[in-house]
């Protein structure tokens, strides 16, 4: 028993990779969420010039090879990139080779997976309720926060969890954009990749693999529990 436990005990390097992953993925989805909500709302409710272009742009990271996305991020946000240079010169801030860069890559990759469930949830909100709310005197913003937002909440939670899981697993764009630096950009998948590159630590490889699976299972279970609870809250299960 003790042997198994000691085998499962994480080393400092492994713990660092896991904590870094949680931080990177957490920040990525929390920053991406309001943006995804805005884009999903625009796509679900409005017709405007450039709507198709926006739709394609949002879906792009899903279909383009992650390496390409990482390279484009490097071009844009690297220290010599057109946005990166500006950020560095004006705010003395850079994404390059920082954990924030890993978060940016993870956020961009998770974005399409977050927009989709939110958009579907908003589209499922009956417009009659919005019309009714307006005749009762609510302004557009109030209608959004009292009707659309709470009714689309299950979609929002799904987006958070799906996005978080995607961000945790992000590999290609991250390693291309911010490289594989221990304690800075070496997230869980990158750590597993590094262990694969230098054979000898099968124990570490297994521990990180098991941990990855546990995180993923945990996220799915959590999303199911949240969905059930929300369903009960809105009373739909009584109908």
């Amino acid at each position: 028993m003790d042997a198994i436990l000691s085998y499962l005990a994480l080393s400092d390097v492994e713990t660092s990779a896991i904590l870094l992953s949680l931080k990177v993925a957490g920040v990525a989805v929390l920053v991406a969420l309001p943006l995804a909500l805005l884009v999903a709302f625009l796509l679900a409710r409005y017709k405007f010039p450039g709507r198709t272009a926006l739709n394609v742009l949002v879906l792009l990271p899903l279909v383009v090879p992650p390496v390409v996305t990482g390279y484009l991020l490097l071009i844009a946000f690297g220290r010599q990139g057109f946005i990166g240079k500006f950020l560095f010169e004006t705010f003395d801030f850079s994404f390059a080779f920082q954990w924030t860069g890993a978060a940016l890559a993870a956020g961009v990759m998770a974005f399409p997976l977050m927009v989709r469930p939110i958009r579907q949830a908003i589209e499922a909100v009956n417009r009659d309720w919005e019309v009714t709310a307006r005749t009762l005197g609510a302004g557009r913003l109030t209608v959004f926060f009292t009707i659309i937002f709470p009714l689309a909440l299950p979609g929002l939670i799904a987006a958070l969890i799906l996005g978080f899981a995607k961000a945790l697993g992000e590999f290609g764009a991250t390693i291309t954009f911010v490289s594989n630096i221990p304690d800075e950009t070496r997230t869980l998948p990158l750590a597993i990749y590094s262990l694969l590159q230098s054979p000898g630590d099968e124990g570490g490889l297994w521990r990180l693999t098991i941990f990855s699976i546990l995180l993923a299972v945990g996220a799915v279970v959590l999303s199911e529990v949240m969905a059930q609870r929300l369903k009960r809250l809105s009373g739909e299960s009584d109908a």
Partner: protein
Amino acid sequence: MLEVDIAGQRGEFNYALSFKSAANVTALFGVSGAGKSTLIDAISGHVLPENGRIAVGDSVFFDTINRKNINVRKRRVGHIFQDPRLFPHMNVKRNLTYARWAGWRNKKAASFDDIVDMLGLGDLLTRMPASLSGGERQRVAIGRALLSDPRVLLMDEPLTGLDHWRKMEIMPYFERLANEGGVPIVYVSHDLDEVVQLADHMVLMDGGRVLHHGSVAEVLPKVHGQFDQGKHAPSALIDAHFESIDPSWDMTWLKIGRQNFALSEKLEPRAEPYRVRIDASDVALALNEPRGTSFQNILYGRVLTVEKMGSAYSDVTLSIDGQPIIARVTNKALNEMSITPDLQIFVMIKSVAVEMAL
């Protein structure tokens, strides 16, 4: 006072609608496609007519001459739809008070407790909409509209889709609302019984036009022909005063003018008259006082007009102590009996055919 004079186009549908009503309850009546919903949506502000004017009391909602168009949420229109449209994620109380906490409407609004009492919602306040019956949901929707401090209540077929018992459950609340007369009501229906029960003023619509408007008693006899190619007979609306109950036969005696009238139903005694709807096809005429007939009601009246409705039959309008009633008779009978205006005649009404308006 409700004033509507609008014209416009909605998709393929042309409309030009004009009427005025000072009544507590104005009914919009017509087949689907008559323009009732367009009219309702124009009042609420969801449809913009090309030109015209809409005013409720002192508030002008829409006026193309003065370039005025009040925003939907500022019109303060209480809109009750066929489907109650309760917000599914809020309990009854949150739904009822939505206009107050989300719409910033609290000035002058009716008391929450009064409206909850009137609609019998006291026990439902913490329930979620999904757990309510259809009738309960519609009552909550009415309460929610009333609590939004409306200038006018628009009811767009609020009882359509509910079964008979749910209708019976809600109708008394509508009547109380109509009788209190606080907020003018525009009531859309294609059910004549509802119109007769609730409305004072009636707007008869077809194909985007107003055919007739006026008191229900005036307009009701005109409801025929265009709605069913003349197959269905028109009906008349009569005020009848409660007289007594005949307990041995479970019947009620009413008085139309000075004449007695039997109804095969027990009614509550009350001072104000009951409204009785009588279909022209349930009325027969006789020159001599009939004997040995199953017709319970034999009244005495005077022929006002005779209108040929085709080669087979005519509608005869009669006065019974000043109250108009219509009889549909064949042209053959008309000819044999020499029915002409001013003729004094016996009018037989099947008591069982009387539609009772509360």
